[in-house]
């Protein structure tokens, strides 16, 4: 079975973000980078699928050379080979452009199952996975929190609002977008990290792929306005506790 998992490298969300000089994106310098959280669930599920029914897992990532670090983690988690689409401007590309690049690579490869995260943590658009499936004319099921494979079909649970889940079945080929709660991603072991260094990591220059026009334009990026009236308490825990109790006494009835 041929399996593809698409991952993205994103900044650690605990980072202190600054706006870049152009005012349309965050400053990419001075950030710690990691695998998009939702993509970790995708990698884990792809590797489990391989462990269950056999096959070959390709991990694909778009970005500058630095994304190879994140790809190595996916390889150490159990992916068999990596495809790096080298594009130092990918962060400015919109979801359709990204999906189109992946679709062009994947079109003639005959992947049976494609795994992606449900969204990236930085853009949060939640579009690339579904668009990719649409471009490849394959089924897509989003936001899955449970996954089973049996005899050429997957049965998954989609997470809906209000704690309800929907059970959905689809025959291969299928693309699923993975949500928190699907699985617990494994930690790469040292032997697997060593093994990963020997795995194939193919680089394709983005300019070798057909380019598509962007559909949208980012006018600006900014920090949200802080809520007026929000009060910050800082200092020693003892002093914060006293001030907090005084505020609760004054502003609420819970200590009455």
């Amino acid at each position, binding site marked *: 079975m041929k399996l593809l998992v698409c991952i993205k490298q994103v900044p650690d969300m605990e980072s202190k973000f600054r706006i870049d000089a152009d005012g349309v994106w965050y400053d990419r310098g001075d950030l710690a980078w990691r695998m998009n959280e939702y993509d970790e669930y995708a990698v884990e599920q792809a590797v489990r699928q391989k462990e269950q029914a056999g096959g070959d897992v390709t991990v694909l990532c778009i970005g500058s050379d630095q994304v190879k670090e994140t790809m190595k983690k996916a390889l150490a988690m159990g992916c068999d080979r990596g495809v790096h689409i080298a594009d130092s401007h990918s962060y400015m590309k919109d979801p359709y452009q990204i999906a189109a690049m992946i679709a062009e690579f994947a079109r003639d490869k005959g992947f049976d199952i494609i795994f992606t995260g449900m969204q990236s*943590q930085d853009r949060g658009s939640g579009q690339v996975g579904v668009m990719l499936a649409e471009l490849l004319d394959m089924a897509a099921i989003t936001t899955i929190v449970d996954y089973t494979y049996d005899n050429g079909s997957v049965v998954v649970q989609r997470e809906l609002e209000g704690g309800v889940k929907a*059970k959905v079945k689809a025959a291969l080929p299928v693309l699923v977008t993975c949500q928190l709660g699907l699985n617990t991603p494994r930690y790469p072991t040292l032997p697997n990290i060593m093994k990963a260094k020997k795995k194939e990591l193919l680089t394709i220059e983005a300019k070798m792929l057909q380019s598509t026009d962007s559909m949208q334009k980012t006018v600006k990026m900014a920090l949200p306005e802080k809520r007026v009236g929000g009060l910050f308490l800082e200092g020693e825990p003892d002093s914060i506790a006293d001030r907090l109790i005084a505020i609760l006494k004054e502003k609420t009835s819970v200590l009455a």
Partner: protein
Amino acid sequence: MKALLVAEYRQGKVQESYAELMAFSGILGAESSMFIVADSTVALPRFQGTLYVAEVSRYDEYNPEAHKSLLLDAIAQEKPDMVVFCHSSYGWDLAPRIAVREKAAQISEVIAVEDGKFIVPACNGKLRRTLTGKGLLTVVTIQAGAFSLDNLPDGIPNVVPVVGDYEGMATLLGYEEAKLGGVDLTRAEVIISAGRGVGKPENIVMVEGLAKALKGEYGASRPVVDAEWVTHNRQVGTTGLTVSPKLYVACGISGAVQHLAGMKKSEFVVAINTDRDAPIGEVADVFAVADLKQLLPVLTDKIMAL
């Protein structure tokens, strides 16, 4: 400008979120029409305008391929400038398919409109991005709760049936309800919630301790429930409960929009977090910049001693 709004129907009911679509369309000053896959013999959204209806008995509640084709038919008839979805499990599943087929820009999770441009969150709510679509048609999904009307819209729509010989690739087998029972957070006057920042399951007792001292209940954000440190019936947020207590204390919760949607109607919000840039600050009345593991025991002791 014309906006085609995509309403939702689930488990036999029209979802009231269609009012949010109307509110959004109202802000844009757009002329609204609507699309829904529903049971027209039971209930349809009430509003004044054209309503394209496909029958759920034929196309099911979840069948994205068929719903996509039906909606494309409605778009072809209506010729809107914009197709608007809720940023929900139904909307984010269907919208990108429409965007691809229509070669339209999709703008996800809009929280506000400014000079006709759309504002969306980025980086877990830490940043805001302003953007526009380039083509003739723009597909938009709007954040739950970002746009609201005081009352549900009313009126009898002009129903236009949509039919087509469309099959799907995915089959809905059924629904599984959340298991609630025991505690009911929606009735609690005080809720102390634990987020990722609690660090480990043993620290939940600190959160529980403060809840007891304030005669309230303890709750949790999504990651803490997924880690099984707290049961699902205590989860606050889009996929859990929506609460509105007199006091909500968010301990080590960064404030992802999904969590904020579940608690922002609380009367008074206290955030305890080491990261003073955490988006929970947007809804906090008081933000204690502190390690909850140090602050909670001290705070609980002092309240017990009152």
